[in-house]
């Protein structure tokens, strides 16, 4: 993947992740990377994951959880890239 596109995507996913975190009264994250785990590193529970899918779908028109379980940021980017 074009590294620039990937950085852009990481930034926009970080923004969405931070919206979800702030909605639960948690502080913003400064950075995420491909290996960042949604549950273990970001601390998302199923309600957060549900919100995350809706927000990503609103932006990219792709439901990331439609066909499989997604665990890391890298897997989200992969699905979004495939769906383009």
């Amino acid at each position, binding site marked *: 993947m074009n590294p620039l596109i990937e950085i852009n995507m990481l930034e926009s996913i970080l923004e969405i992740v931070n919206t979800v975190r702030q909605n639960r*009264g948690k502080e913003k994250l400064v950075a995420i990377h491909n290996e960042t785990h949604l549950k273990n590193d970001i601390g998302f529970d199923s309600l957060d994951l549900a919100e995350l899918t*809706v927000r990503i779908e609103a932006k990219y028109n792709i439901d990331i959880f*439609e066909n499989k379980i997604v665990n890391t940021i890298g897997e989200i980017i992969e699905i979004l890239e495939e769906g383009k």
Partner: protein
Amino acid sequence: MNIFLKDNKKNQIYHWEFLISDINETKSFNPYCYTDDYYAVFKQIIVSLLINEKIVLLDADFSPTEVAHLTGVSELGAFTKPLIENQLQKIQNLDDLIQKLNGSHPQWAITLFTSGTTGIPKKVSHDFSSITRHVKKSSRQKNCTWGFAYHPTHMAGLQVFLQALLNGNTIIRLFGLDTQDICEEIKTCHITHISATPTFYKLLIAIGGQYSSVIRVSSGGEKQNPKLFEDIQSLFPNAKITNIYASTEVGALFASENDIFSVKAAFVDQVKFVENELWVHHSLMGETENNSDEWYPSGDMVEIISNDPIQFRFVNRKNEMINVGGYKVNPHEVEEAIMNIEGISQVRVFAKSNSVLGNIVCCEVMVTRQNITEADIREYLQSKIQEFKIPRIISFVDAISTTRTGKLIRS
């Protein structure tokens, strides 16, 4: 297995011996159970049965305001009272415990709260015979290991708990674990029985694999489709699958091996269908604050497949409850809470379908005060309603969408 409960979330294994000595050392009892600790909930229910006293289960995520509202008391700790001598007879061993638990409990009753249809959760009480109506006790049940996939203070969890307890079975907590850990627990603990919501099975299906130790699987709580049945069967190739219809008000009522239900001969005079809605006779119900009526409309709409004998399929809910991963959210309750915020003039709460939880709660609000933010609304709601009821997507709009008759559109 000599284990009463394995709670991997807490890294704890409780053996029967531990439970029995813990019970024998119990000196006091509080009729209100308000904790998220599985062992503590289970032990409190067991003690209530042994001393034949009523118990009230409260969800650990009810806010203190909700608890005060539901129970009418604000200081639950004040209800702890010391046990009088010989009130709790010494338990000799597991057989003795099971025998005492299976005995009669004339004064005992358990109270739970439903998600409610008119604003606040509704109080429902069951006595021992109505809550154990579907508990099977036989030598065949003796060596079961149960995967526990429900909230311990909810009706379904209580049913699984009693089924396991009254047969002396081991309980393995699955609820609240990561999906990967759930798979591990099923395999390493050789779980034989699982009862869970369709959402639970969907998460396992997404990961795949096969679990040969499981011989019985039951599901309920959400509408099922035949594809899901097939997928569940391939996860558990040796299991018999049962679909159960149950509610907090009625308990477990129907069971079926597919999505078509029939009425057991014993209940034939106690259920009826009024304009395709299931009605249940009050003799089958737990006690609620206002169930003086002879028949209770369940709100569950069915499709009648044959009349003699009667066979039917559940179609949808008559009311507008939003099902978030098996938890019911009443949009009216959420709207009422939001309308209490100063500066909000109108609100519409609705469901949006979601691949993770089935549905998520969303809302549109109209404001009269411009500086009100999404964060303000969330902060306020956090102290008023449970987390899963708080809208995850809040949009500020100039006009609320309504139907032609002026009703709010729900989805």
